[in-house]
């Protein structure tokens, strides 16, 4: 009678174990493992964190500590097209907040959440290192530079029929 049961699908478990193995199951690689895992699952649910903790032999409390510390990690499933608006210093002074507000207004979800249809999620991000293009928006892997609030609609249009 185990107290805590970790429910996972066979395939997910194997994938996760392989990720850990590719980093030699080293505790020091926790952030890299979580990064990869989030790449696979789109987010880091409790079950995934439990398995990572077991595989790397660190406590799950520590794993959760790291996941909550870095804004990049999320425990909420992200949308099919995750939107990140950079609010680092350069982007911020060039109007990133207004761009972010426009995304929130049109999609009707706050930062850190996903639209009910699962299509878009919005996240704030601190500096992607492309300050010359400020303000910068990322949708999935695609980068948009010098985005103005009135350009937001156009960006979203690209993903409308997909």
């Amino acid at each position, binding site marked *: 009678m185990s107290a805590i049961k970790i429910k996972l699908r066979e395939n997910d478990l194997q994938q996760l174990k392989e990720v850990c193995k590719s980093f030699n199951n080293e505790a020091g690689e926790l952030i890299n493992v979580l990064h990869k895992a989030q790449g696979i699952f789109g987010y880091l649910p409790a079950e995934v964190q439990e398995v990572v903790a077991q595989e790397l032999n660190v406590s*799950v409390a520590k794993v959760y500590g790291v996941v909550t510390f870095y804004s990049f990690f999320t425990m909420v499933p992200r949308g099919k097209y995750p939107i990140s608006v950079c609010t680092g210093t350069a982007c911020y002074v060039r109007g990133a907040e207004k761009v972010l507000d426009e995304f929130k207004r049109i999609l009707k979800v706050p930062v850190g959440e996903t639209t009910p249809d699962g299509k878009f999620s919005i996240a704030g991000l601190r500096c992607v290192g492309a300050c010359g293009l400020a303000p910068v928006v990322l949708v999935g892997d695609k980068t948009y530079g010098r985005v103005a609030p009135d350009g937001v609609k156009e960006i979203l249009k690209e993903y409308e029929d997909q």
Partner: protein
Amino acid sequence: MGKLKVKIDNRLIEVEQGTTILEAARKIDVNIPTLCYMNLGDMGIEHKPGGCRICVVEVEGRRNLAPSCATDCHDGMEVKTHSIRVLNARRTVMELMLSDHPFECLTCAKSGNCDLQSMAIKFGIRDIPYEGEKSTYKPDTSPAILRDVDKCIMCRRCETMCNDVQTVGVLSAIYRGFESVVAPAFERNLDHSECTYCGQCVAVCPTAALTEVDHTNQVLRALADPTKTVVVQTAPAVRAALGEEFGMKPGTLVTGKMVAALKQLEFDYVFDTDFAADLTIMEEGAEILDRLGKFLAGDKDVKLPILTSCCPGWVSFFEYHFPDMRDIPSTARSPQQMFGSIAKTWFAEKIKRDRKDMVVVSIMPCVAKKFECTREEFATDNNPDVDFSLSTRELANLIKRANIDFNKLPDEDFDKPMGESTGAAVIFGTTGGVIEAATRSAYEMYTKKTLDKVDFEQLRGMEGIREATVDFDGFSLKIGIAHGLGNARKLLEDIRAGKSEFHAIEIMACPGGCIGGGGQPLHHGNSAILKARQKAIYQEDSGKPIRKSHENPSIIKLYKEFLGEPLGEKAHHLLHTSYFDRGKEIVIEADVKEENR
């Protein structure tokens, strides 16, 4: 390496390389205030995150103030610990900390014993100029430990105890900046985590962010109820520490005064957990000899080493982390539970009371005991064998509330029969004591000879992991001892890997054993206090007329009248237990259709 010459507050001192400013200052009795810093030197436990910034000092030639706990001395260094710049910085840090702290000192469980409060007094803080956001967090109640994170100052001492010392890994800092708190994974409550309730987090928390669950009012209510017969038992380590709560020197034995106080509190029977400790030795000793006998007869399936099982924090630990090995520990219940079981059967019959009309209270140096007595297997018809477990601190509080001048009390004796005990029982209170007590009895039972000398010095000490060999008339009994769950883990991993050569191992969850328990008077990081308590325990042992458990006349009578033989049917039913698999388990779910992801 040469010595370093350092000037602290205009006084010259020579120190070794690697000495911090804080350590150097303390050598010349300059007590720089600290809050997050913790150093239990003899246990090898040090925590200096340099996080609180209370210990800052001014170093000549350095632009910013230096955290003295985390800054090493260098040759020719000049340090000022109380310049106006330092005092102002310290005050500001304190004021900012207090600006996000509840002002509940009047009703706070830690009032009078709170490091933050004493620091505020020391700094002469009279008002808080900062008005800012206050963090709020849900309180968490478990059977033993209360978390009130609003009072957390993020010193993270608990995290060091839980992770580095105990390797339990339940507590971690989560989130960042203003939002950061210490919490279990996924912010679950403690009773949904792998917490063993060892209480070491409670023992080091500077504020009331972590406290034991208070059961004093329930006990007072039981005492006031004329229909109840209230029986109290006191654990061995309590008598070596209770005096500290009344200003006595650490290591003062207060056995007689404690009994007198409990009688004044109007407990109907004042008994001793030591009685049950002797009983534990009868059962555990018999079990050791039984397994050893089988082993020597060539039985390959016998489980060795045998591990002690009197510590509830340790029992939870192996149920969570080593469930595959749960057939190795002795099945003997802890003294607290053996006491409850016998009090509500044998003794209940003697005084012609139904178990439902009896209330058994235990005074324990422990918070895990609060959890242990709620375990379902230790109840009959929903009536628990032990109703309430109070910590040493809670007992001190009860005594103060009853207007008893503890220091002036005369010495009184425990009631009979369950107050009679031997020197072997009292040493249960320190690391190494249980196995020494077991050795005293097992030796005589095995060799059929009388021990010339009952003191087994080789089993004593404060080292985290110790080993010793005791000659059993030609047979070398190999004994291991670990205190602190991190040390226990090392021995368990050796056993799992088939590398252990011990026949018997004693394990205590808390550093020092019960003398350093989570329910004891706070030692505020002073490990000399633990040593003094240990000395007191051995002092009580050597002063006892009988020092071997199997010679306790009341125990002999108990077996004769009621139990029969050790490991017999009745003993098995009343004095033994079984353990549960509480380990985490990965369950494979059937494949869900991809679109449902």
